[in-house]
């Protein structure tokens, strides 16, 4: 029986150690960049072996830690001899065939007998060798041998993604007081602190610079107006809020991107991203167009009739995307009805005193934005999916934000939601089945239609004639700009059909005239031919009219909602 037990315990005896070398940090994690930490070293006895001589190497990552100082402790061995040597630019090469935690064999085979292969050069690491020798009293186990103080460095730009290995034990030789010969060395293993110190084991080190973070703007409007978009970055507050002053502000670049400087943001921190449009941008008056008016009217009609709208999604719905309820809410009443559609119509007609809640030159931009992964999908935390928060990590430093504008229900100047659930399921089916949907049609590639717009000198007056060739237009809008130092608008003449609703919005200060028509029900079409004529009086004698009138914007909408891009010949 004894033999059996001996046989059973033989492996334990064979692989048992005499002592262990341990090292660990003191203080409370998680740590912060710039904070000073202490790494302490001590031995643990496995077999009550008396140690009179010890020599060990450890290494630290000098990209992650900056050594501040060291102090030998050894409270029970004040008379011991001790030394510390330091080398920069080397990293221990663990000896194959021996476990890395087998510190005495790593000493013997990995360093002592490994020649110049034991410490290849490596700029990221520094090595320290500690020697303690006692003559009269054994070096106490469990007592702190040495404390080394480091400052935690910012790992941004170092190539390291974490602080999971800032120090590492390389090898150790320990002997009793009879001889320091290698043959007399104790078996040394690694203590419970492990072979390496992991500063992230109680939570990631904080305060790490995020490096360059890219924040991308997604909107149709960025093609022509990217640099008129502005941004502010704040510290996040709660799930979707902000706090304090802006950390960083500015304009998007020509690509519609913000690229932060390396130290602007901190890794692992949450930020609130705000997207705005410069309120002085002249293009804001062109956001809400005749197509938007038509779509909002269809929704108002659907809501009033209580009938199933073309886009599906409910008995009183004609929209394809839930977020259109936010974008079409021009009166801020909480619902979309004829008040909203007439506000929209009033805008293209140039009516004064309209609602302050939608985008135009008077009101400025009414911004809607959020992370594209969420935008358009409402939750308790994110109103219409407007998630403003981003959190840079080592793995993710690029974030996409969608932007839209109140009034722009056809997304012609905004981002069409792509998040799962951002589109009504019935609308998706309707698209697949090519069923009628005003929004769906409006968002398809516009059809092209020829248009002839010419200015001409007629009996001393300047006439601008718009000749429509496209049939089936429920609406059309033309913005023309004129030289008001020479011309005064005298009259606008319509020949669009007896029942068509026409408009001519004259913005005198900007010298812009918006002229067009819209049948809100989509029942009748604009009469083709010379549908519109503007007559100007010149204040000087002219020989011709070149350049006096320019076309800044044209758009048409068919009765089924299809947008028409006019090809001016």
């Amino acid at each position, binding site marked *: 029986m004894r033999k059996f037990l001996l046989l059973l315990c033989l492996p334990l005896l064979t692989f048992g150690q005499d002592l262990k070398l341990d090292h660990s940090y003191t203080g409370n994690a998680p740590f912060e960049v710039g904070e000073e930490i202490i790494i302490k070293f001590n031995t643990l006895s496995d077999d009550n072996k008396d140690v009179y001589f010890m020599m060990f190497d450890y290494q630290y990552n000098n990209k992650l830690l900056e050594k501040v100082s060291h102090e030998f402790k050894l409270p029970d061995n004040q008379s011991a001899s001790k030394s510390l040597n330091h080398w920069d630019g080397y990293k221990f090469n663990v000896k194959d065939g021996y476990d890395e935690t087998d510190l005495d064999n790593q000493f013997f085979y990995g360093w002592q007998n490994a020649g110049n292969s034991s410490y290849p050069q490596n700029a990221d690491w520094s090595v320290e060798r500690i020697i303690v020798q006692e003559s009269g009293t054994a070096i106490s186990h469990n007592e702190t041998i040495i404390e080394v103080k480091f400052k935690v460095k910012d790992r941004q730009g170092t190539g390291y993604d974490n602080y999971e290995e800032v120090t590492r034990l390389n090898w150790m030789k320990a002997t009793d007081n009879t001889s320091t010969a290698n043959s007399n060395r104790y078996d040394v293993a690694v203590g419970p602190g492990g072979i390496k110190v992991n500063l992230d084991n109680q939570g990631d080190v904080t305060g790490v610079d995020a490096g360059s973070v890219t924040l991308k703007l997604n909107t149709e409007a960025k093609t022509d107006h990217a640099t008129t978009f502005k941004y502010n970055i704040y510290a996040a507050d709660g799930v979707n809020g902000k706090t304090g002053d802006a950390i960083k502000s500015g304009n998007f670049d020509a690509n519609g991107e913000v690229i932060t400087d390396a130290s602007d943001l901190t890794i692992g921190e949450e930020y609130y991203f705000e997207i705005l449009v410069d309120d002085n941008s002249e293009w804001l008056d062109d956001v809400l167009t005749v197509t938007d008016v038509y779509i909002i009217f269809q929704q108002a009609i659907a809501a009033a009739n209580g009938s199933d709208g073309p886009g599906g999604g409910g008995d009183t719905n004609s929209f394809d995307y839930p977020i259109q309820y936010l974008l079409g809410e021009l009166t801020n009443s909480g619902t979309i009805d004829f008040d909203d559609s007439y506000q929209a119509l009033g805008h293209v007609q140039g009516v004064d005193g309209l609602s302050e809640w939608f985008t135009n030159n008077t009101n400025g931009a009414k911004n809607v934005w959020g992370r594209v992964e969420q935008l358009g999908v409402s939750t308790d935390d994110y109103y219409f999916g407007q998630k403003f928060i981003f959190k840079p990590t080592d793995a993710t430093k690029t974030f996409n934000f969608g932007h839209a504008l109140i009034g722009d229900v056809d997304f012609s100047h905004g981002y069409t939601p792509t998040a799962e659930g951002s589109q009504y399921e019935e609308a998706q089916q309707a698209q697949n089945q090519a069923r009628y949907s005003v929004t769906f049609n409006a968002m398809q590639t516009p059809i092209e239609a020829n248009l002839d717009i010419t*200015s001409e*000198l007629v009996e001393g007056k300047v006439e601008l004639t718009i000749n429509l060739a496209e049939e089936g237009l429920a609406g059309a809008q033309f913005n023309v700009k004129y030289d008001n130092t020479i011309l005064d608008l005298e009259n606008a003449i319509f020949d669009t059909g007896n029942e068509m609703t026409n408009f001519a919005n004259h913005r005198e200060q900007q010298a812009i005239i918006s002229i067009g028509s819209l049948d809100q029900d989509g029942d009748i079409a604009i009469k083709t031919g010379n549908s519109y004529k503007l007559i100007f009086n010149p204040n000087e004698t*002219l020989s011709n*009219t*070149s*350049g006096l009138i320019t076309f*800044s914007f044209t758009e048409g909408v068919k009765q089924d909602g299809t947008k028409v891009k006019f090809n*001016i010949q």
Partner: protein
Amino acid sequence: MKKFITLLVILTLTSCVRDEEFIIDPITEVPEALVIDDLVGIKLESNIVTERVAMNVKLPEDGVYRIKIRHGMNNELISQEKVTGREGDNILKVYVSALDKSSFMLELTNEFHVVIGRTAFTVN
């Protein structure tokens, strides 16, 4: 006396001839900067313009033509005039106050959009 009467009669007869038979087509004075050597074309007095600039539109025959202004980058048509011109040089103007400060293409076509000439200009 006979000679005097004869002269008077000749003068009287001459003065009764219809005017148009003596009309000569007016020759347009073309400033040197606007002279076009080719048979047709379009030319500006200056290609850098601040408010307005003279141009010569040299046409192959009398008729209706179009003078188009296109954006200098995307070629989008942003202004178009219909003008009735005479064969040869026609001195006209381009007004640029309603244009953005940018580069443009000035294009001369016939009534049916067939291009006759092009030139570029910049609004400063």
